């Protein structure tokens, strides 16, 4: 019996369903509460900070001046073009984005801490905020940071040898000027931390809603100036992260400092307004791209000028290079791009820091490549699917002009399967009929690659000062035959514990219920990198498989001795060590007990303790999304009628979990495409600080998906599984927006921005209609 491939209900669920999950706020019992006083302005010099008068016992307020010995957060990228800037825990001297923490109040309750924080008066000499690319890159613009006089924190540049020649030979050059507006990951649980000081040991335990506890511990210890072993970081149940919770934030520095300073327990539970203002933003990007095509529709060269607004600081540890450098390196996506010229800049502004958000630069770069294919097809009179056929990568391994090596994938086959599934000709007939009734349907295709499960080789290439990537796993079977798997990775909703239990179950022949996966506690797990970049199933899974294989070997060795057969004759299955073809069988718990209590019999180290380590080069998942929409041309409203996903993620350990990842990702992609946008006004006030202004989709905006799977096995993943954490979000915006563009084809309207809001769509239609008829049209 095998467990891999089964849609096993998750082991994580029963406690969460009963309300017994423990998220960070559920750890705040008995703590003093913390609230931050934040800068009301985007930029300026701090002239003074007036603190409230506090009655005895009424709490305390601290500012940067109190944080003796606390350093700044300064992530490193070893590239000559990188300008390192330091982020203080509390603003000192100046503020550089609206919402930056300036002072911290501590009181008995959260409400009282807020009472204090709102009485902190920050006297700021304002500066004109630099908010946009134009403002930041203008000649003579004020520098947001003195370290980066040009307001560029990181820059990638590349030109391949044959670029000019390829462009000269082109039959047609397609130009795109695309924009992605600023977005937020919006995990339903905000950030938060509870730091407690242990008087007996002097240690601090920080329970925090984070995706990478070990990394956080390293960063915190460095910045606060303490030994790492004096700090324990626990990621409890985490209410979603999507990248927003994988950076070291100043608030956590302050919490640890406070716990030590006050020798007590302090809690900060971020509110939604703070989460919008001051956690992390993403996807504020402008891509100007030209594609040179041959008359047959082959892409000959790609010319890209890419900008990412990385905000006021560089996120630790992955740095502000994460968006611009990924955009730069992975723009070609699933297509063969023979020649490439690229420039990609991370531009600093007086806005909230950019940090990774599910998909990072790929939703935008997929949107870019997919619009490029559509427009080129139109210009060359080709079918939009056909032009993709001519350009998709079909031989492996494939090396892109930026040096990315693609392992085995099914780009073309996945697209063909999706196209066949939706029945494009039938759609076109429906579309034509609908148009005669004044209804506008559209179909959009999006083909993309998802680089997943990459280890140190890839991160090292980026020049990161801290090179993440590997995972370690410690596995032990106790004398009763139950397995404990301690992982460095730190899942938060992905169901990884269940999936790993299934892997282990298959290796050692126990039921998954008997496998307990322990994660998210630096005291209880080996050093690891956490859960992000669609890596955990591949890397933690690989390491777990190795550890489980070693455990299986040991169990077999013991069984062989006990049953007096050759080791090679023993199999582990359904709770027993068996010798096939005989009636010899020993329950696995008996082996476990013997390993611990009769160890003298086996000439082996007592017990069953193994470990696994995995640091792969990475593997590409791929998928094709096809979306059908109806656009209400009078309001600009878009309704998604159908959404098809053909996904190739190799072997699916738990198909139900995989489909859940895809569905959640697509929902976020739909939000990106149509609804979500963080908006600063000209003065740098964030206007979208509530969920009534920033609009994640609800159940009414997200359709039921039709998901199909393909299975390309890659030698790059020992479990044969590829990552799927981000694909939904990467591919969906392009599919939705291509569908909108298709629906609006009769109007000649171009979709060049996400989100494509009703206002933008409607005004584009109307303006086009006015231009075409030269009459004050009433379309």
């Amino acid at each position, binding site marked *: 019996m095998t467990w891999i491939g089964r849609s096993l209900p998750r082991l994580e669920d029963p406690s969460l369903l009963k309300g017994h999950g423990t998220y960070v706020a559920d750890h705040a019992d008995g703590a003093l509460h913390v609230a931050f006083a934040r800068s009301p302005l985007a930029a300026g010099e701090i002239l003074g900070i007036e603190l409230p008068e506090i009655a005895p016992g009424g709490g305390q307020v601290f500012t940067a001046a109190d944080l003796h010995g606390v350093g700044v957060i300064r992530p490193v990228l070893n590239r000559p073009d990188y300008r390192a800037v330091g982020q203080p825990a509390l603003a000192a001297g100046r503020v550089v984005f609206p919402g930056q923490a300036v002072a911290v109040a501590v009181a008995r*309750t*959260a*409400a009282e801490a*807020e*009472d204090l924080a*709102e009485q902190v008066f920050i006297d700021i000499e304002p500066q004109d905020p630099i908010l946009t690319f134009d403002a930041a890159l203008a000649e003579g613009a004020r520098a947001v940071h003195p370290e980066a006089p040009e307001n560029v924190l990181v820059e990638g540049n590349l030109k391949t040898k044959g670029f000019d020649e390829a462009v000269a030979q082109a039959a047609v050059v397609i130009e795109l000027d695309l924009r992605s507006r600023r977005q937020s990951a919006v995990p339903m649980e905000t950030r938060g931390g509870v730091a407690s000081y242990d008087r007996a040991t002097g240690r601090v335990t920080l329970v925090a809603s984070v995706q990478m506890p070990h990394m956080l511990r390293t960063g915190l210890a460095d910045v606060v100036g303490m030994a790492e072993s004096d700090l324990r970081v626990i990621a409890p149940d985490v209410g979603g992260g999507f990248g927003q919770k994988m950076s070291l934030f100043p608030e956590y520095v302050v919490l640890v400092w406070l716990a030590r300073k006050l020798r007590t327990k302090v809690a900060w539970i971020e*509110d*939604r*307004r703070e989460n919008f203002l001051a956690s992390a933003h993403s996807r504020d990007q402008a891509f100007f791209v030209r594609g040179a095509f041959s008359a047959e529709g082959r892409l000959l060269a790609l010319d890209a000028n890419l900008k990412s607004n990385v905000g006021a600081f560089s996120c630790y540890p992955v740095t502000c290079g994460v968006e611009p450098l990924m955009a730069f390196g992975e723009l070609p996506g699933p297509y063969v791009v023979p020649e490439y010229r690229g420039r990609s800049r991370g531009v600093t502004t007086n806005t909230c820091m950019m940090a990774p958000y599910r998909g990072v630069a790929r939703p935008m770069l997929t949107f870019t490549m997919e619009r490029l294919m559509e427009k080129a097809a139109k210009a060359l009179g080709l079918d939009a699917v056909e032009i993709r056929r001519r350009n998709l990568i079909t031989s492996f391994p494939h090396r892109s002009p930026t040096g990315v090596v693609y392992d085995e994938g099914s780009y073309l086959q996945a697209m063909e399967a999706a196209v066949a599934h939706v029945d494009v000709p039938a759609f076109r007939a429906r579309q034509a009929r609908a148009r005669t009734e004044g209804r506008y349907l559209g179909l959009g295709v999006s083909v993309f690659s998802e680089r997943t499960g990459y280890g140190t080789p890839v991160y090292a290439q980026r020049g990161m000062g801290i090179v993440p990537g590997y995972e370690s796993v410690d596995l032990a079977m106790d004398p009763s035959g139950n397995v404990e798997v301690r992982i460095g990775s730190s899942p938060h909703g992905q169901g990884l514990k269940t999936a790993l239990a299934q892997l282990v179950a298959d290796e050692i022949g126990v039921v998954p219920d008997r496998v307990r996966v322990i994660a998210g506690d630096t005291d209880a797990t080996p050093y690891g990198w956490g859960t992000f970049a669609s890596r955990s199933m591949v890397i933690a899974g690989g390491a777990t498989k190795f550890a489980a294989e070693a455990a299986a070997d040991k169990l077999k060795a013991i069984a062989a001795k006990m049953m007096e057969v050759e080791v090679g004759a023993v199999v582990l299955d359904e709770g027993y060590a068996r010798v096939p073809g005989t009636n010899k069988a020993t329950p696995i718990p008996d082996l476990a007990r013997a390993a611990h209590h009769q160890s003298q019999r086996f000439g082996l180290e007592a017990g069953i303790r193994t470990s696994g380590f995995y640091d792969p080069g990475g593997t590409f998942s791929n998928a094709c999304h096809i979306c059908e929409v109806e656009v209400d041309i*009078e*309001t*600009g*409203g878009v309704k998604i009628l159908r959404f098809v996903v053909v996904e190739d993620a190799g072997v699916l350990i738990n198909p139900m979990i995989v489909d859940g990842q895809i569905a959640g990702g697509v929902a976020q992609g739909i939000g990106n495409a149509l*609804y979500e946008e963080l*908006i600063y006004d000209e003065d740098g006030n964030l*206007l*979208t600080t*509530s969920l*009534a*202004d920033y*609009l994640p*989709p*609800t159940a*009414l*905006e997200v359709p039921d998906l039709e998901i199909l799977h393909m299975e390309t096995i890659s030698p790059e993943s020992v479990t044969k599984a590829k990552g799927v954490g981000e694909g939904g979000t990467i591919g969906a915006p392009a599919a939705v927006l291509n569908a909108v563009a298709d629906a609006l084809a009769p109007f000649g309207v171009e979709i060049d921005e996400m989100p494509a*809001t*009703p*206002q933008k769509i*409607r*005004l584009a239609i*109307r303006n086009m209609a006015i231009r075409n008829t030269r009459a004050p049209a*009433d379309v």
Partner: protein
Amino acid sequence: MKPAAFAYLAPTTLAEALEMIDRIGDDGKILAGGQSLVPAMNFRLARPGTLVDINGVAGLSGISGDSARGISIGALTRHAAFHTPPFSGPLADLLAKVVRNIAHYPIRQRGTFGGSLSHADPASEWCLVTATLGATLHIASLTGTREVAAADFFRGTFTTALQPSEILVRIDLPPLGAGWGTGFYEFSRRKGDFALAMALTALRIEGGTIREARLGVGGVADRALRLAKTEAFLVGQPAHAETFAAAAAMAQDSIDVSEDIHAGADYRRDLLGTVIRRALAEAAA
């Protein structure tokens, strides 16, 4: 996001409540469903010193009357009371249609009809209903009860004719009997969000000609607007698309539309025409 401290009073009779708010004055606030006031308090945008919770006040909720005679609605009646039409006839059907666009199911369990009017959000559906249909509002204070026409009640964004010492107790909607057709169309970013524009109409059509008309729009200006001029234009016109387009154009010309992050003036004016045309078409169908 915890509210600033306040004192809490929970009267059980109207007289007691009136006495309390009269005594407290400007520093007090009435707490009805709390679905607008409490978010504002949590953001600390509102910070009343005392809350007078009227949820326990007897006799403030309930619906009576019928479509033909008009409907009387207690101020504390929850939005959810209209989930199914309380009576038969066009008026009750209209209310049941409109209520589905107000926020979401759990919010409708608490939010009240009177709270919506008192709060006077420019995009409130109930404000639009009362303004368009010409409701009469009954307002109590220690000195007695006064009646105010909806047209005089709404003064601007979150601003009404209510004095701090007054409580809105009842709303009378005039009849909309047999022969009336109603239409309501709202456009919002997601269903349940506040309207970017919405139109409400009731038409009495005989032999294809409009004999009587009510038309109002919400979410487009600082308050819900009844479009009296356009109503006058509609009367006597044939009930077809051209008429509706002309009416929409009239309204677009006459309203100075508001702007926000989801809709600039240009787009909102454009939407205004669309929601009016669609509401009218529905009423005529």
